[in-house]
């Protein structure tokens, strides 16, 4: 069966740091519309730490250890609301991966599913509240569907990303009821959620690290 290799996961984490860096101002701009204008800085600080550790991460074949280490690194460097949320995502996503050195679509769905459960438990939010969950939950649902349909990795990741993008865009019309943006009430309508956007960038980078654009 085709699988996602350890090196591709490492490549994903490394690329994510660059993509977040390139989008720092964009994420911060989104957060200045409905939050406190720090989401880009927070995410960049966190993923720069992951980048500093990339050789240490790459040295471990065990993907559980890789995701756990990533989670701890983000948790201790991002701060704000997104630190514990992304930290929980990676820490929980690591749990089902004991002994794994490569991932099937099913492994990925289980892992990310646990990760999103971690975010929901930590932030006590659910879909429709204008948060990163609105990107992540549909993405995981798409992965689960791919498991059922026995899709290839390529199809699974494409469907996942399409669902994530749609979810992210749905946040534009939502009223925020969690986090800082909730203080705006109705005035939060018309703005895309910064956390939903950073989640989309992370998933987009995953797909692009595994599927070469012209292959």
């Amino acid at each position, binding site marked *: 069966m085709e699988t996602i290799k350890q090196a591709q996961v490492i490549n994903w984490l490394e690329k994510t740091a660059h993509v977040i860096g390139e989008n720092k101002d964009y994420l*911060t701009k989104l957060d*200045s519309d409905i939050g*406190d*204008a*720090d989401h880009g*800085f*927070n995410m960049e*600080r966190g993923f720069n730490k992951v980048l500093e550790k990339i050789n240490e991460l790459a040295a471990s074949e065990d993907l559980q250890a890789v995701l756990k280490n990533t989670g701890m690194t983000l*948790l*201790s*460097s*991002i*701060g*704000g*609301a*997104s*630190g*514990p*949320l992304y*930290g929980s995502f990676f820490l929980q996503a690591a749990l089902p991966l004991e002994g794994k050195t490569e991932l099937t679509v099913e492994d990925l769905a289980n892992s990310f599913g646990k990760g999103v459960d971690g975010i929901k438990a*930590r*932030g006590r939010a659910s879909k429709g509240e204008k948060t990163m969950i609105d990107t992540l939950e549909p993405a995981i649902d798409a992965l689960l569907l791919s498991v059922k349909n026995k899709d290839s990795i390529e199809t699974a990741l494409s469907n996942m990303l399409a669902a994530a993008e749609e979810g992210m865009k749905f946040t534009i019309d939502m*009223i925020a*009821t*969690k*986090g*800082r943006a*909730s*203080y*705006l*009430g109705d*005035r939060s309508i018309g703005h895309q959620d910064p956390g939903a956007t950073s989640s989309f960038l992370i998933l987009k980078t995953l797909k692009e690290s595994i599927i070469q654009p012209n292959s």
Partner: protein
Amino acid sequence: MKKLINKIPDVITEQMQGMLAAHPEIEISLEPKYIKRASATRKGKVAIISGGGSGHEPMHGGFVGTGMLDAACPGEVFTSPTPDQMYECAKATQNEGGVLFLVKNYTGDIMNFEMAAEMLNAEGIQTQNIIIDDDVAVKDSLYTAGRRGVGTTVILEKIVGAAAEAGYDLNKCADLARKVNSRGRSMGMALTSCIVPAAGKPNFDIDEDEIEIGVGIHGEPGRKRISHTTADEITQMLTTAILEDKDYSRILREWSFSNNGWEEKELTSDAFKSGDQMIALVNGMGSTPISELYTVYRKLHEICSAKKITLARNLVGSYITALDMQGCSVTLVRADDEILKFWDAPVLTPGLRWGV
């Protein structure tokens, strides 16, 4: 942007180093960042620890010292600190009396402090979190993250710090903290925005002749944007919002030592009424002259007197700030004998000192 800073990434570190140089009674750690008392406390004393984003100085680091906090964890500017900071800080500070985290109600602070409390409790270090949510500008808690933690924090840290010094155990300190929070209400306003060093430009736009009523300490939007007006009218608006605020109920989370997990507790703040006696804080947002704060206090005193509300104690100055924002906030905490006793107790910190 014109600020007294060197390099932007060094802002927090250099301010901590300056505090250390100025105040030998505190000690700092830079990896991870926290500020604690230099001398060990009595064995069995509850460690009272707070923290939050930087930019609100002197809160919280300036309140570390005898009679107030044992330690404080500063985050990046306006960003919650991280669980490893709180965890290491608590381990270095606690002395077998347990740990009380005083947490302002912001999503980031709540989650980071919860993770730290889970780690400490898992290691057998009894840790409780008490939330402060006193900003009446946020009316509702059902469709928002709830009222923000603002001015009551200063008063609460003083009172609970004194109680811990006097020998209250963890449960009694938590009870007192919950009580002070339930009796505190605040409302703030901004004349100007503030500039976060990393952003380099104002946090929000506000015209030369506009003011924001109900602003938060990070420049969060308030209740309304109006044309600039007199100090008396502004004070009237802030005070009225506080005095006319109805009973306010919300669900807050605390650690349950019997269930070894979080439990939700309903807390109600009774509306203020005539006959109440208060501790009053007229607070500057960072760039407001003390003279203007006294002008506000004058009117606050007049309004409360007319309503037969006594301002039994007061604090006038900049204690919980929003960097270089111009503006003020008013906080009233309904006092009783226990609260007044601990308010009057000696305190010796960089930011607040009396009776010593």
